[in-house]
Each structure stands twice: as C-alpha cells, then as structure tokens.
C-alpha cells in the first residue's frame, strides 16, 4: 500500500498521547457492558409509533371484551318477537344495529370477540407449548429424526385445511373441537421450527466460545439460549392468533365450525354475509373488529420478531 494515502491530521491535541495510568479496579472492566437483552428488545419494540398505538388499542379492546360481558345487562342471545326490533340500523340504543331477529349486534360482537380471543389464545398456548417441548426433545435426541420427519411429512405435505376440515367434520362442533383441530394441524411446524433453532443455538459460535471460557452451563442456558427462545415463543404465539381466528371463520363458512347459535366472530361474519346486500352494517361491524384483531396481532408478532433480533438493537 502506498504510504502517502494514509493522511495524518496535523493538529492532534497533545494529551491524547499521554501514557494511561494504571488502575487496579479497572482491570475487570473489560468486556463489561450494561446491555440487557430484554430492556433493549422492549425499547426497540416500542420505538415505533405504530407499535405503541396498536398495543394500546389491543389492550383497551381486550380489557373491554373482558369487562363488557360482566357489566352489561343486554343479552346477546335474546330474540325480539316484534318485527320493529329487527334489522335496525345503528342508533344510540344499538350502536351496531340489530340483526334479523332483533339481537343487538354490539353485544354480540363483544361476546363473540371474547369467544374468539379465548379460542385463539388457547390455540396459541397449546400449539406453541407442544411445539416447544417436542421441538426441544427432537433437537436433543437425534434418534427421533426418522419418526419425527415421517410425521412431519405426513402432516405438512397435505394442506392443513384438509386435516382441519376432516377433524372438525368427525368431531362434534364445539370450542374444544376447534382447538384440537387447530393444534393438531399446527404443532408440527412449531416443533420443526424450534428443533432447528435449538440445533443452531447449540452450535453457535458464541456458545462454543462460552463453553471454552468455562462459563457455567446454567449461565449459558439462562443468558444465551432462553432469551432467544422466549422471544421466538412470543412471536410465534402472536402470529398464531390471527391464523386461528381466520380458521374459525373458514370453518364456520364451510359449516363445520362452532354451533351457529354461539356468538363468535366467525359466526357473526358469516351470518352478516348472508344479509350483506340488504343490511351491510350487519357484516361490516363484526368484520371491522375481526380484521382489527388479526392485523394488530400480525403486526405485533412481526415487529416483535424484528425487535428481538439483537442485530436491530442500538
């Protein structure tokens, strides 16, 4: 290399060239940083305005769906016998109007949101939970590979809608059936995903380095492995929710969903659909709430995935 290309600034202050003093207490300072994985993740996550707004709205809505059915006196199942109460447009008394038999859509939407949220949270918990446990076993015991890959191929080569429809068709329609059908078709993907994450984490350079530096295994698992997995778990659970809600709508559309007299977002959307051309509000309101939930959880899941990646931490 040509030496002339290295330019030296001329007026550097002299004190930069002073000899550093020896401080015994600073010997241990090397490599210390006050970096905390969770603090950085949360900070990065909430840096975006979209996330702040969406999380706030989701929390308000979740609180409302829990509180409303407890305090309201309006029964979402009460049918009105007088035709004057049927198909009313939105008004002060009925903010979302009433349906074809005079039931208040506002009440039905919030009862339905509660059912759908409970259902999808249950699916997320069981699916991701099962996936983590089986994926961890699969990752640690390589002998399971043959069996697990056979199961994996059997379950994933066929579109999950087919299994979903089949299970929902065979069993009696109920909330439990839908949960079982969704978990049964979804757990294997989670397991495969966690298996590959765990395999990769075991061999990753910083863990090999930690082992060489004689870091206790407890510390490796606690600080290097678990934080990584927990953020994956949160992200996956968040992304499972819109999928479960969508599947519930799909199953009620093809007629193997929850019983038609139960309030769920799927049932409300499908019942509103048949009256859409005459009374569009009967479908629009439930659909708005439903899309709001699915889109928010999708955004939260993806933004959290970005935030949990240390490469995006500042």
């Amino acid at each position, binding site marked *: 290399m040509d030496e002339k290309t290295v330019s030296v600034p001329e007026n550097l202050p002299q004190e930069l060239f002073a000899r550093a003093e020896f401080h015994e207490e600073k010997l241990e300072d090397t490599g210390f940083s006050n970096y905390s994985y969770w603090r950085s993740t949360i900070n990065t996550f909430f840096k975006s305005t979209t996330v702040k707004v969406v999380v706030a709205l989701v929390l308000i809505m979740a609180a409302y769906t829990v509180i409303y059915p407890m305090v309201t006196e309006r029964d979402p199942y009460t049918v009105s016998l007088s035709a004057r109460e049927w198909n009313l447009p939105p008004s002060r008394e009925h903010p979302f109007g009433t349906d074809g038999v005079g039931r208040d859509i506002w009440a039905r939407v919030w009862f339905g949101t509660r059912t759908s949220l409970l259902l999808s949270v249950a699916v997320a918990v069981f699916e991701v939970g099962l996936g983590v446990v089986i994926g961890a076993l699969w990752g640690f015991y390589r002998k399971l590979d043959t069996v697990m890959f*056979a199961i994996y*191929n*059997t379950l994933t*080569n*066929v*579109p999950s*809608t*087919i299994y979903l*429809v*089949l*299970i929902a*068709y*065979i*069993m009696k329609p109920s909330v439990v059936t839908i949960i079982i059908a969704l978990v049964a078709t979804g757990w294997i993907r989670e397991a495969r995903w966690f298996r590959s994450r765990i395999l990769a984490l075991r061999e990753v350079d910083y863990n090999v380095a930690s082992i060489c530096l004689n870091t206790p295994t407890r510390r490796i698992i606690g600080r290097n492995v678990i934080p990584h997995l927990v953020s994956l778990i949160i992200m996956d659970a968040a992304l499972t929710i*819109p999928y479960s*809600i*969508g599947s519930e*709508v*799909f199953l009620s*559309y*093809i*007629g*193997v969903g929850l019983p038609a007299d139960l309030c769920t977002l799927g049932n409300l*959307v499908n019942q509103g*659909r048949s009256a*859409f*051309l005459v009374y569009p509000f009967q479908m629009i309101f439930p*659909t708005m709430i*439903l*899309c709001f939930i*699915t*889109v928010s*959880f*999708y*955004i939260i899941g993806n933004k959290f995935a970005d935030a949990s990646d240390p490469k995006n931490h500042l």
Partner: protein
Amino acid sequence: MGRYLLSKLGQAVVTISLVMLVVFTLLRFMPTAGYFSKEQWKDMTEAEKTAYLRNMGVLDPLPLQLKNFVTNLFRGDLGRSIVLYPNSPIGGILAEKIPYSILLNMISWFISAAIGLPLGVAMARSKGGLADKLGTVYVVIIRAVPSIIIHFFIQVFFSKWLGLPMLFYIEQPISWILPTISMSIGSIAGYGVWLRRYIVDEENKDYIKFARVKGLPQKYIMWRHVFRNAIVPIAINIPSDFLLMLSGSLVIESMYSIPGTGGLLIKSIKAMDNPMVQVLVLMYGALSVLGVFLGDIVVSFVDPRIKLVDSND
C-alpha cells in the same frame, strides 16, 4: 442425480402411504349416518342399519377395509356417492369436475407468477422505498385478514364496480375473471414477500459485494447471481403451489358456484357424504405429496449444487 430422485421418490411413497393410513383411520371415526341417504336413515330399523353397514364393509376391521379400498383403487373404482349424487360412481363425478378446477387453477397460477415474481423483485430493489412499503401493506392485508372476507368483498364490490358477473358460467369467459383474481391474490403475496426476502439476503452476501467491488454491472449481478440463487427456494414450491391451489380454492369454488372439486368437498361435508369426503381428502393428499415430489425434481434442475453433491459421492 438418479440417487437423489430415487430417495425423494421413496420418501413420497412412504409419505403417501402414511397419509392414506392417517386419513383412513380418521375417517373411521366419522358418524355412520354419512353412509345412509336421508330416506334410508329414517326408514331403516337398527338391525337393518347394522346389516346395511356390514354389507358395505364399514364394520370390517380397519386393515381389511384399507386393503379393500386400495385394491378397488387400483381397479379404478373409487366407490359410490351416497347422499350428494345418490349411487353414482365417484370416479365419474370427479372426471366431470376436475377440468373446471384445472382450468381456473392454471389461469390463476400464471397470473400469480406473472405478478408475484416481478413484485418481489420490485420490492427488493426499492428496499425501504415506496414500492416496498406499498407491497408490504398489500402482504400484511392479504396475510392478516381472513381470506374469506377478502374473497367476499372482491365478489361483491368488484362485480358491482366492474359490472362483472357474480357467479361462474363456463360459456362466459368474462365470469372467470373474479374467481381467478381471488385465487391468485394470496399466492401473489406469497411469491412477492419470499422473493423479496431471498433477494435481500442474497445481496448482502460477501460474494455479491465482491462482484460489485470488481465492477461487474448491476444487471449482470442481479440476473447471474442474485436472482438465480434467490429463485431456488421459490422453485421448490412452484409445483405444490400449483397443485395446492386445488385446495386453496375450496372456498372460492363454492362462492362462485364453480362446478369443480373444491366446492365438491364442501358440499359433501355439508351433506355428510362419507365416501365422497374420503375420496376427495385422499385425492388432495395424493396431489400435495405429488407436488412436493415434483418440487424436488424442479429444484434439481434449478440448483446445480444437487448434481454436484451427487457426483461427489
């Protein structure tokens, strides 16, 4: 190459047998009411029903039933529909319906590849820019909003705005437009978002940076290196996407009253026609496994590394 294909073929055969076993076992738990037509169910006594079921072979032990089903399958006999098309051979019903599904799926597959792949390239090129942001909004909407709602609004509003027919008529090609749009919007998003991601990943690799430093033209780098590598993981899914559209169109076929196989599955489920459900589910299973196998073949043409690995053995 030969060994690679052979192992993939073996895998496909194993998978398809397992799928058949699982589906067949699951279907034995179906309510037996699905083996009777409405009149039979009302009029028959319990003893008659049992005799009827025994005669059909439904009460036989599972392995025997499976054996009978498979031997009949090889003879080309798929069984008979009971409720939906009383006593018609299922093979004949399918032969009538499959062409409709194939026609629409072909069209929408071409549309989604023709729009989705350029979308992915455009999004990757303008990373962080306008095209990328618009594309992301599209992808979020398609992925997060349940597809039925999107299909429904397409059917209702597009037919109103564009003056297109709301239902499908084979003799009016103009009525094919809405169903094919509905069928392709999902896979457009899929192709777009994955291709974007693979291209971005590939562009960040050292050898690309090196090629750029070396002064190779951007166009050459994009086509010779980035695109060829980024397309591999997409190519593996093309055949199964193609075949899976048959099942993705379950809802769309029933919405537009397209007389294809997807709508047929929904109708058979609603009518509780067990033999129909069984054959259709197995058909979808077989098609999907076939799709995965074809994907492995396609990838061996697109990805030269597979040939190399084999010849090194």
